[in-house]
């Protein structure tokens, strides 16, 4: 086991080191050699007219894309920050550098599916995804499929799915980029990128390193007497690489291979009220994933085969140093392999048919050497999809899809979804969408096999969901406005909960307990304006109202019936504003998180039984410098501009105002 972790780490490390050397050399050579050619080549980028019409395969689906402004502004941050700043997905963060999980449309962390270039990143063991692990820098495009629309990508995403994509830039010849980021609390981040290629082949390599002492000061009102404190034991180090290869053969074959290695070590801080002896608590994650794809285009037909592996090792350790007592020393290995075969037929923008077959295997091997417990289990799953999209009339389009799945020994024959989209006026300014789906979520392997308390008899979580959307879109030459308003409702039965054993045993058990009714509103607004001369304004705002309640409390004394699930705010909103003038750009991102309850009965109390609403504002100022093909960017960033005192999770310290400087140097031929 140890050797596995070490070999991955060594691989990632040596890759990063070798790449660092190669990068420096190439940069050096390029700057000498190619600067001579600058005058010779004038490479004209072709302007491509983007047609406003929506692709037929997306009709009636609730799909949104994270704005490029957010991706660029937050490129040195984690996916957790990106989600909070620019999507309606609520992120529950345990603190700076600590883990962060998602709640999409009022559902649990395991109900948000995260796919990287089509491959699931959710842990087969726990079902969730730690959003603090992924650097935005490694992602070129982020798309969200809300609610039942996620069925077109896969099952299990009761809340929705998030798709992280990497794309080839066929116009690239040689480009290099280096970013140095220095942040408060001894935080240093380095990013580097080298892309080489021509119109038939592209290679892109990205590496990053992120290290922080994370010793931010905070006023500790979790102990008596109150004191000025510094966050302890929260340091982290992450590094990783992403290698992409793309090849085009005979114009209609497209091959790609993407490899992502990642290492993340972090110490885990204690609660603000902790005053015990020295405790060591740490988590180390090593991940290696690769995905290869072959795409073949032939007229209206389109074939695709992708195959990938995902290998994750996680080491969790906790001990009390003075007594030498080890509480946990748990190591887990998760191996998954994914295979996806897809056929599409598309006739203009009026007819689309897609069918696909997925065959995946997951293996989990977890063992805690202190408690001498663990399990080793395997899961095989098959998923078949047939999807039809038709333009019914000038104004109406519809889709119908059907999924059938098989996992462990269970067949889930019918998972349907139907949707209709209708343009309310001829100019397509107002559009309405409607869709209904059934969806379900398999129990995770921990739910089934964890010792003690795993329950092999668990049923899948089963849900029905429907939504109605109203879209208003008005593009004009110097301004554009878009508003998307979604109303949704989902009923999820057999919701899995871990609870103390009813037999009186001290450990917890998994059961299908709750029936959850999640409903709400998502409102997305985009507004762009070009004004005066050289001034540009870009605004993206999201508001989400989420009512998610347990409707099946059993006992009469149980006050949780009809109450909001814990740690899911009713109201969240974010607003991102980008204002640019020539080479200057100012970005302000704000997020507001409403009150969250920590008791299932939603008791109102002054004594931290619920967490107060808070708003965080971050400021980003950038200046571009261009000299021939050399580009430099200097950025200054202020996090938590108003030094807001807040808690995201009960008694987890959060930093006040802090700063960063960002310098980016790029060269592109």
């Amino acid at each position, binding site marked *: 086991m140890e050797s596995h972790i070490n070999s991955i780490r060594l691989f990632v490390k040596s890759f990063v080191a070798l790449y660092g050397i190669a990068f420096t050399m190439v940069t050096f050579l390029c700057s000498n050699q190619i600067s001579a050619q600058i005058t010779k080549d004038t490479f004209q980028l072709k302007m491509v007219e983007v047609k406003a019409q929506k692709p037929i395969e997306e009709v009636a689906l609730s799909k949104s894309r994270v704005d490029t402004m957010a991706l660029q502004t937050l490129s040195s941050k984690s996916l957790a920050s990106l989600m909070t700043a620019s999507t309606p997905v609520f992120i529950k963060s345990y603190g700076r550098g600590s883990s962060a999980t998602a709640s999409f449309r009022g559902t649990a962390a395991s109900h948000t599916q995260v796919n990287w270039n089509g491959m699931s990143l959710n842990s087969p063991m726990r079902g969730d995804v730690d959003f603090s692990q992924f650097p935005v820098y490694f992602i070129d495009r982020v798309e969200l499929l809300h609610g039942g629309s996620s069925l077109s990508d896969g099952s299990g995403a009761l809340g929705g799915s998030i798709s992280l994509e990497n794309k080839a830039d066929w116009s690239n010849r040689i480009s290099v980029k280096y970013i140095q980021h220095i942040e408060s609390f001894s935080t240093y981040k380095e990013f580097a990128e080298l892309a080489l290629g021509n119109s038939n082949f592209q290679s892109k390599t990205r590496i990053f390193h992120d290290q922080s002492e994370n010793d931010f000061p905070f006023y500790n009102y979790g102990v008596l007497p109150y004191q000025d404190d510094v966050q302890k034991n929260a340091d982290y180090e992450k590094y990783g690489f992403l290698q992409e290869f793309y090849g085009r053969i005979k114009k209609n074959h497209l091959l790609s291979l993407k490899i992502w290695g990642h290492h993340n070590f972090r110490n885990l801080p204690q609660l603000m009220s*902790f005053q015990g002896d020295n405790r060591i608590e740490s988590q180390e994650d090593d991940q290696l994933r690769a995905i290869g794809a072959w795409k073949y285009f032939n007229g209206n037909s389109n074939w695709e085969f992708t195959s990938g592996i995902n290998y994750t090792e996680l080491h969790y350790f906790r001990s009390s140093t003075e007594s030498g*007592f080890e509480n946990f020393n748990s190591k887990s290995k998760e191996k998954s392999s994914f295979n996806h075969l897809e056929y599409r037929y598309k006739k203009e923008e009026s007819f689309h048919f897609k069918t696909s077959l997925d065959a995946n295997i997951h293996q989990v091997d977890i063992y805690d050497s202190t408690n001498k417990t663990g399990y080793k289990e395997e899961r095989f799953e098959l998923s078949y999809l047939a999807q039809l999209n038709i333009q019914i009339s000038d104004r109406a389009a519809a889709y119908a899809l059907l999924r059938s799945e098989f996992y462990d020994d269970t067949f889930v024959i019918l998972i349907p979804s139907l949707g209709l989209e209708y343009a309310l006026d001829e100019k397509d300014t107002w559009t309405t969408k409607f869709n209904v789906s059934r969806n379900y979520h398999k129990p995770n392997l921990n739910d089934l096999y964890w010792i003690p308390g795993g329950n092999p008899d668990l049923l899948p979580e089963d849900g029905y969901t429907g939504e109605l959307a109203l879209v208003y879109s008005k593009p004009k030459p110097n301004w554009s406005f878009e508003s998307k308003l979604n109303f949704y409702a989902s009923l999820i039965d057999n919701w899995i909960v871990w609870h103390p054993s009813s037999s009186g045993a001290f450990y917890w058990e998994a059961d299908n307990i709750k029936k959850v009714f999640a409903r709400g509103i998502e409102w997305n607004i985009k507004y762009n304006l070009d004004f005066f001369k050289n001034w540009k304004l870009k605004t993206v705002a999201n508001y989400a109202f989420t009512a998610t309640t347990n409707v099946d409390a*059993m006992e009469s004394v149980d006050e949780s019936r009809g109450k909001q699930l814990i740690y899911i705010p009713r109201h969240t909103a974010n607003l991102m504003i980008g204002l640019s003038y020539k080479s200057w750009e100012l970005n302000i991102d704000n997020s507001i998180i409403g009150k969250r309850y920590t008791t299932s009965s939603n008791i109102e109390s002054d004594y931290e039984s619920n967490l107060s609403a808070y708003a965080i*504002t971050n400021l980003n100022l950038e200046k571009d410098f261009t000299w021939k093909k050399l580009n430099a960017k200097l950025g200054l960033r202020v996090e938590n501009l108003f030094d807001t005192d807040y808690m995201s999770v009960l008694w987890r310290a959060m930093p006040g105002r802090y700063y960063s400087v960002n310098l980016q140097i790029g060269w592109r031929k």
Partner: protein
Amino acid sequence: MTSKISTISKFLFIFSTPKGKEKESPSYNFHMNFRNPLLNLILLLSIFLSTSSCQKDPVETVFFNFENTSGVFITNEGNFMYGNASLSFYDIEKKRIYNHIFYARNSAPLGDVAQSMEIHNGQAFIVVNNSGKVYVADANSIEFSASITGLSSPRYIHFLNDQKAYISDLYAKAITIINPSTYEKTGSIDVNNNNPDFYQHSTEQMIQYENLVFTNCWSFDNQILVIDSNTDQVIDSIEVPAQPNSMVMDKNNKLWVLCDGGYPESPYVHERPALVKIDAQNLEIEKLFRFKLEENPSALCINGSQDTIYFINRHVFRMDVEEAQFPETPFIESSFTGVYGGFYSLSVHPTSSQVYLADAIDYQQNGIIYRYHPQGHLLDSFKAGVNPGSFYFKIE
């Protein structure tokens, strides 16, 4: 278009200022400026920014005086790693419950997982397990006075005299000795048996007989350690069935120990749970009752006259200490049939012999405490905090 923006701004404005009395005036400006999209945006922005200044409202201090009041303190564990443990006090005469009394009086949380509490010389010692500390507060006013910090995973405190107390610990492999007058650590008792397979010994409850202190080792263990309180040394041990979770001493100086027997697929052991009677003088096991393998008995306690023991085994059972037969029928029946819930903790009032029984409901909301007459019928019930785990009776 512009009016739409204005509507949005207003909407966001309404949403973002929940208290917003003083912030009403800016809404005027919308009408004045809505024709200019830029100004609108600036306004929108300023609204967002204005909400950023919302801060926690300071909590007003609540003053208590429980002097000459008979009642029961309830330590509510809260949820592990939530830091939401709390202290409740139930005034028996007035039938009134005071929740969150530590926070209300001291404007600070108790910490993470309040395990147990004892009162010594008018001072309440509250053991906060996963915060690694013991908070000391005045037992009548609940005003914080001191803390004993730097502990590993403290469970219970036992007072030997005004200068010496023991604090048992799940992880420290030692019992910490403190001076309850100065709150300082004065030493420790090593209980490590260097077992290469499992960490032993963890220490739990403590019961004194003459100069001997008995402590049960629950986690992956099967020992009752015997400590000489004069020398602060482990001098002997008694082997019992697996995982002794609670114990009491009866009027005949017999130590009763309840063992849960482990759990299915436990790497340590899974055997039938047991109730054991041990002679405190010669340390010999006198009686051993076995439960069924799938049962999980807990919360052994005794009445004031030390002649009847009580425990939870789904239902509540009681048994005369002189009785040779194991009780067949429950004393208080649990109506509970679901997959979660049921009785969580139990204690018996030392003078009235009324039975206090807690149900943690779904473990995520305030638990309910049922009070039963000594004959077993329900008197009343009230809500305490999250996961009410232990009781301390204050008798005036």
